[in-house]
């Protein structure tokens, strides 16, 4: 049970942490705003093409806000973000925020499933590797971990589809309607994460095994299973939670590639489409949403870490 003082310290820490991320969020928004100004040449001309009429060109310029001074563009950009007006495509007239909102749940679903799969693989594998240090299982888990980090998702994805969809016929090739559609993209996205997590679990459990309380638990005759799963794992999993949170942000970025491999209808594939369509406002919106989610998840993880482990000083 957490005491009132501890809760107050945590609330204070949370408030402080939130104040710290404000300049970071400001910098992210400003960087995203400035992106359109690094386009070589005239972004409005590139958007409408060489054959567009003068009227179409001027409309695009005004939609992109390029007909105003830079500072006005910047304040308009902030105003639009806050009001939920993230711009519209001058050609298709589709609202940016609406398109992103329709795709966002698919990306989160994919990333969460990938995280779940990675956790289910890495905890038993990491614990077994640590408790059987130097054995075949240990070397095997290290090799799998290194492969998971090194094999790009755009090679692993097609390979999994080839084996499980084309040869064995147990999963659909692509699409997003059912649970079966989710499995291969989630495994592909989660592979690198399970590799990293396995190493973290192994290393963390190895560290805990050296602790005095483990010796005590063993000395009083507890079965090894209870020592590992009731005592060691509880403490050993704390760093794992942090890595899980930090890796969730990495998964969001990784989803851009995985979504393209499987034609998964998320923000990542929307981002890639927006780049090839030169829909600058949509590209900015997608980048902003992914980056903001990343910052918020990381902050949340930081808080969860301190909540889970009272030994960490809330300074």
């Amino acid at each position, binding site marked *: 049970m957490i005491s009132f003082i501890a809760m107050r310290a945590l609330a204070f820490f949370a408030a402080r942490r939130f104040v710290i991320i404000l*300049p970071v969020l400001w910098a992210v928004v400003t960087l*995203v705003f400035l992106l359109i100004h690094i386009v070589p040449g005239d972004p409005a001309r590139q958007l409408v093409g060489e054959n567009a009429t003068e009227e179409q060109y001027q409309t695009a310029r005004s939609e992109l806000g390029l007909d105003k001074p830079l500072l006005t563009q910047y304040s308009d950009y902030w105003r639009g973000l806050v009001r939920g007006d993230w711009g519209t495509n001058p050609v298709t007239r589709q609202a940016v925020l609406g398109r992103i909102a329709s795709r966002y749940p698919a990306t989160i679903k994919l990333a969460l499933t990938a995280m779940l799969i990675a956790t289910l693989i890495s905890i038993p594998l990491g614990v077994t590797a640590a408790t059987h240090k130097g054995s075949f299982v240990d070397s095997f888990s290290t090799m799998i971990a*290194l492969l998971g980090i*090194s094999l*790009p998702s755009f090679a692993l994805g097609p390979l999994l589809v*080839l084996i499980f969809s084309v040869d064995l016929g147990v999963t659909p090739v692509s699409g997003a309607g059912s649970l079966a559609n989710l499995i291969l993209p989630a495994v592909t996205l989660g592979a690198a994460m399970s590799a990293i997590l396995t190493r973290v679990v192994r290393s963390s459990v190895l560290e805990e095994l050296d602790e005095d309380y483990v010796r005590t638990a063993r000395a009083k005759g507890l079965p090894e299973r209870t020592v590992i799963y009731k005592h060691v794992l509880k403490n050993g999993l704390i760093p794992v939670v942090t890595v899980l949170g930090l890796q969730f942000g990495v998964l969001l970025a990784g989803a851009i*590639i995985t979504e393209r491999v499987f034609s998964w209808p998320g923000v990542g594939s929307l981002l890639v489409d927006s780049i*090839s369509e030169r829909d*600058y406002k949509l590209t900015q919106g997608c*980048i902003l949403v992914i980056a903001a989610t990343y910052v918020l998840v990381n902050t949340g993880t930081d808080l969860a870490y301190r909540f889970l482990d009272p030994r960490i000083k809330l300074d």
Partner: protein
Amino acid sequence: MNKVTQFGFAVAGLLVVVAALSPLLASWERVQSQDLVARLDSPDSHHLMGHDQLGRDELSRIIYGARVSMLVGLSVVTISSIIGILVGALSGYAGGWTDRIVSGFLFNVFLSFPGILLAIAMVAFLGPSLKNLIVALSVIGWVGYARLMRAQVLKVREYDFVVAARALGASNTRILLKHILPNSIQPLIVQASLGMAGAILAEAGMSFLGLGVPEPIPSWGKMIDDSREFWFTAPHLFIFPGVMIALAVLSFNFIGDGLREKLDPKQQGR
């Protein structure tokens, strides 16, 4: 040095040699010439990796792909390490407000962005080219070196020999270049080796998304993307480039891990 690290050095060395000698090992004509009758052909004794979707020789394209991969990797590591070392050294050595702005704000901003997302954003707006790809990956890569260098400077500057050098009237530049940098170089080499693996993987990923080097230069990531319609009828089109990317990344990761273990005995077995 253990066997895994030796394997890493052997494969990485071979890849660098292949990249450097690619015009001698394969002809540029075979990279480009299309034999539509042979399109999607599986590997045989004349074409060891078969033909791609346009009937081009896959092996020649893989060999030239090594060139892009190594060139981008080495350039990104060189540029980002130079920037990172300078910024990190300045931040750690100057201290005060400079350090607060650099390490408290700049590092946080760059680390709070998923690196690859920032690179995608930059190339999406700058336009895909070899130069822009290297610039974008260097922009996201320097922070790792800068943090490491800053930490090293903070540690090493308290050592007696640095204090002695200062007492003898050595200038800041001399202390940084002659005393602090040589004592910080080992962890930087480990970081560079892991950074090389990261840059190769990022280059392949960006090329897969259509944000890498433009045609007609072959890149492993782009080769996988270009053949997406034929992945399941001609799997050699994604397997060969995929294996090459994995081997390149794995070899530099092995080198980095091996060197770290050698330099930091506490890491052994962890």
